């Protein structure tokens, strides 16, 4: 499994750069990951990232756009505005979680 260095820390990631170890993440790292993909983080962005982190802890799976809408209360439309083009993937990337599946 590839290891990369971010903020002087060694971080485990998959082939596409998604973090693979839940506890290697903190918000400083999230901010760095957001910068990499060109997202400027506001409080609204962070509240979504925190929802994803909590939800993953409970369910063991990354929330999809639909789940973020149903359980997180943020309409899909808004998710696309905050994280353009591929919100589910971008949110997972910044939150240090695996890419959401649900696509078999």
């Amino acid at each position: 499994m590839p290891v990369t260095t971010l903020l002087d820390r060694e971080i485990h990631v998959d082939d596409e750069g998604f973090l693979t170890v839940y506890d290697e993440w903190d918000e400083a790292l999230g901010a760095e990951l957001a910068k990499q993909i060109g997202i400027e983080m506001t409080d609204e962005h962070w509240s979504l990232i925190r929802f994803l982190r909590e939800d993953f802890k409970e369910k063991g799976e990354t929330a999809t756009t639909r789940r973020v809408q149903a359980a997180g209360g943020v309409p899909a439309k808004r998710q696309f505005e905050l994280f353009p083009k591929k919100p589910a993937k971008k949110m997972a990337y910044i939150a240090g979680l695996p890419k959401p599946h649900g696509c078999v």
Partner: protein
Amino acid sequence: MRRLLVLGAGTAGTMAVNKLRPRLPESEWDITIVEQSDTHYYQPGYLLMPFGTYQPKQLVKPTARFIPKGVNLVKGEIDVVKPDENTVTLADGTRLEYDYLVIATGTTPRPDQTPGMAEEEWHRSVHEFYTYEGSKALTEKLKTWPGGRLVVHITEMPVKCPVAPLEFTFLADSFFKKKGIRDKVEITYVTPLPGAFTKPVSAKALGGMLDARSITLEPDFMIESVDNEKKAIVSYDEREIPFDLLVTIPLNMGADYVAKSGLGDELNFVPVNKETFLSKAHDNIFAVGDASDIPASKAGSVAHFAMDLFPDNFVRYVEGKEMTEKFDGHANCFIESGGGKGMLIDFNYETEPLTGKFPFAVVGPMPLLKESRLNHLGKLAFRWIYWNILLRGRYLPIPSHMSMKGKVPAKDA
């Protein structure tokens, strides 16, 4: 008497009771299955009916014919499960009690979940082929459609039989060629996925097949609504795709009673252990077939492979023993590619679809991930196999766990 209650007599529920009845002595076990429909539908036929391959009556048989002796078939619509009381209530008020519950109520298309989808244009220029009624309406439509912009569209994953939308597209291409109007038809394939299919290797192969047929691929498209006035589908990121004929796969959801009973996720699928199908929330509830949330294809073949091990596991479980058989997510499907040819793909939770040959004991090896006439015939033969062997829980010589025999790992293909 111990009571086993099965909800839904579709593919999975019917196979389950056929396999469980001989394993559970009638003196000790009462088995009941609840189903709302008098008719069992052969759903894979919905794909081929619009192109004239099947007549509607070839796809229906009475539900009761496939329920074995010694199993009570109760007709009714399930209204709610009360897992804390171990009861199920039907819409007509009937109350059924159980010791063990097997949920097998599948998934259905829900056009009502996308704004504008099931409105003025529904069954006019907006169609679907995931239901018997929908497929029949589309059959009529295609008989007289003069051509124009055909948009084939998937709302959201997962959908049952995830290759069916692509197959529909290939078959439409071949149908219009035969009719001599292919030059009047522009075909666009619109998907929420980043490519033509969910598994990268087949996405590549199948994407190439779209190109070869001059079909435009529009990936990463998350639909927000159908605009009935403009006749266009609109995505959350404000792309608009105009159509003269939209064939959409609406959002696929589990039954509403699952949500009402607090047993489902956002799409009403029941969270289960993906190797044993035991509910994560209740130790006397299982969910099999399309109704569960396992990360495998929602397909009859998956239900079939799962039913090779579920019955023995169930018997062990109710005896207080460990469930030793673990499901690996094995799926295979015939893919119609048009022009009387088909492909076969084979994969599981971990392995990408393989090329090579599938060691099919009855008709000989079938080429994998390659188009051939034999694969097309395999698909047609499947209807007979379905009615006569699969549903009745008879032995079919295909191993439930995936084997690598005759197959070439994707990276070497």
